[in-house]
């Protein structure tokens, strides 16, 4: 489909790559585009509930500034004018930022995350702040203190999590692209369940300054988009060393769009046998197998690879991430910001504030992490998990001697029903089985849609994992596969805007 002026397709239906052309040629203004998205939010967000906060005045002001710059013959930047949605765990100066938690109900950050500053500097109007599992802890967005977000493909199902709002916003046409964070799969899994593209960058590639911390050795912000090319463009804006984050990497940032069309001829693709086993839904396995066949047809050398330590990935992750979380969340003490529930002394005030401010899953992870770090259990749990993390990294290194990228489903199932897994935390944790190994290794991975499962008509996501800092190869392989798979159908909620 071409995106020509006067075409019946409203701007909110187009990809960023299409929109950039229209904005540059003057066939569309940033203000018109932003209006189109705000109207779309008005129209569908009462059903989807992707946003906690919508910021129309702010978005329109930024769009108007981009339009003025273009009218004055200035260059506002290559992506300027394409609106973006931002997960509500990323600090935005002057805009309420809750992390999906009651404890931050009234929190107005006094500074912006580096990521948010970079989006603004690139001229991307921020449409609002998207819903998430409280403090990014969850796989369904049901742990939000405010409300669950619904999957645009089926409003009775979850969008995945924790960045469910950012994924659903893109899938429902309420944002062209968006930002999420990924600690154990929180970008990739919701991308999979909502039928959009989601990329988890290498740890250290994107600044964590201003991200409300969950697990500091794992957290990374990354893009959601409707195409691999769009994801590459948004990553370009986010990536690069930041003096405000001492763990951000000094390496030069490559051009993520330059090699998208190089194809997969001769690329060695390893299918991870541990992630294609019994727990995988039949329709998910079928679509992933078809995609593997397509990669072979395109000239990739596809083989199977065994990474035995992946079987312990979930357990390693659910010891390390809660341990780090229990330390990070100690800052919510009712003193400097957020909720306070009074008590006769400081300890009682702290304990009551945290009891009332945190939801069930956050308390569970704080308890789990505190236990794993406590005297007498540290070596058996946390220490042991850190050593197992080394074994997982070694497994990856061995696999990358023979392969350039590794492949698996992103999620073992399609989107599950709202309420289906909330009573059983362990079952919920197991939905992260395919995504946690990459997180523990600090490497990169992308989820791209590969059709819908025959049995339920819901999106299936395919994960391509790469070496640390090899986003270029991962994006190239994902783009080649996306082209060959052809256009992903839109969710029913999309309607028929071109007719």
């Amino acid at each position, binding site marked *: 489909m071409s995106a020509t002026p006067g075409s019946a397709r409203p701007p909110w239906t187009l990809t960023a790559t299409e929109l950039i052309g229209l904005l540059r040629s003057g066939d569309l203004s940033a203000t018109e585009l932003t209006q189109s998205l705000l109207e779309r939010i008005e129209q569908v967000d009462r059903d989807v509930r992707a946003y906690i906060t919508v910021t129309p005045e702010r978005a329109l002001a930024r769009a108007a500034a981009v339009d003025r710059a273009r009218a004055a013959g200035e260059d506002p930047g290559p992506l300027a004018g394409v609106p973006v949605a931002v997960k509500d765990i990323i600090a935005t100066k002057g805009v309420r930022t809750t992390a999906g938690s009651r404890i931050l109900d009234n*929190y*107005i950050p*006094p*500074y912006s995350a580096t990521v948010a500053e970079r989006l603004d500097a690139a001229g991307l109007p921020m449409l609002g702040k998207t819903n998430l599992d409280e403090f990014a802890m969850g796989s369904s967005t049901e742990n939000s203190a405010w409300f669950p977000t619904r999957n645009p493909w089926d409003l009775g199902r979850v969008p995945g999590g924790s960045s469910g709002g950012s994924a659903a916003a893109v899938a429902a046409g309420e944002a062209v692209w968006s930002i999420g964070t990924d600690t154990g799969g929180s970008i990739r899994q919701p991308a999979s369940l909502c039928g959009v593209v989601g990329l988890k960058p*290498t*740890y*250290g590639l994107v600044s964590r300054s201003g991200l409300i911390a969950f697990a500091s050795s794992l957290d990374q912000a990354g893009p959601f988009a409707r195409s691999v090319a769009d994801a590459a463009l948004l990553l370009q804006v986010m990536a690069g060393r930041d*003096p*405000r984050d*001492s*763990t951000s*990497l000094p390496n030069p940032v490559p051009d993520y769009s330059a090699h998208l069309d190089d194809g997969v001829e001769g690329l060695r693709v390893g299918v991870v046998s541990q992630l294609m086993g019994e727990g995988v839904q039949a329709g998910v396995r079928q679509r992933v197998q078809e995609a593997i066949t397509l990669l072979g047809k395109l000239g990739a050398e596809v083989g199977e690879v065994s990474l035995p*330590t992946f*079987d*312990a990935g*979930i*357990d*390693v992750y659910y*010891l390390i991430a809660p341990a780090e979380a229990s330390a990070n969340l*100690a800052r919510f*003490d*009712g*003193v*400097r*910001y*957020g909720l*306070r529930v*009074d008590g*006769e*002394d*400081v*300890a009682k*005030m702290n*304990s*009551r504030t*945290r*009891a009332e401010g*945190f939801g069930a899953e956050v*308390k*569970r992870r704080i*308890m*789990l992490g*505190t*236990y794993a770090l*406590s005297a007498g259990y540290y070596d058996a*749990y946390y220490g*042991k998990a*850190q*050593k*197992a*993390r*080394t*074994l997982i*990294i070694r497994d990856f290194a061995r696999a990358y001697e023979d392969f350039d990228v590794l492949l698996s489903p992103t999620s073992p199932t399609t989107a599950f029903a709202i309420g289906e897994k909330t009573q059983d*935390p*362990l079952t919920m*944790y197991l939905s992260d089985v395919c995504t946690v190994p990459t997180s*523990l290794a*600090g490497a990169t991975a992308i989820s791209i849609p590969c059709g819908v499962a025959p049995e339920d008509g819901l999106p299936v996501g395919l994960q391509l994992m790469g070496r*640390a800092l090899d986003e270029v190869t991962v994006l190239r392989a994902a783009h080649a596969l996306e082209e060959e798979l052809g256009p992903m159908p839109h969710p029913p909620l999309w309607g028929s805007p071109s007719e």
Partner: protein
Amino acid sequence: MSISKEEVEHVARLARLALTEEEKVLYAEQLGRILGHAARVTSLDTEGVPPTAQAIELANVFRPDEPGKPAPSLTQEEALANAPAVEAGHFRVPRILEAED
């Protein structure tokens, strides 16, 4: 694996969480099951394997200690703006020490 109510109470004290009786029972059961699942980790052979605290090898990142760099400092007003209780330019908290008399 089972976790006792006393262990839950101990951990909750360490984590500064005032749990209800129902929560204590629930978390004892759930933590037991989650840690039971994690037994797969405890059975791995990690003899001589070094721990990984973070996956990317960056160590000792130094910078000069200069006010306002690399980001401008918050003003006192900005730093206090989100505080639940403020007095005379300070965070106000309940009593920490018992009175002497």
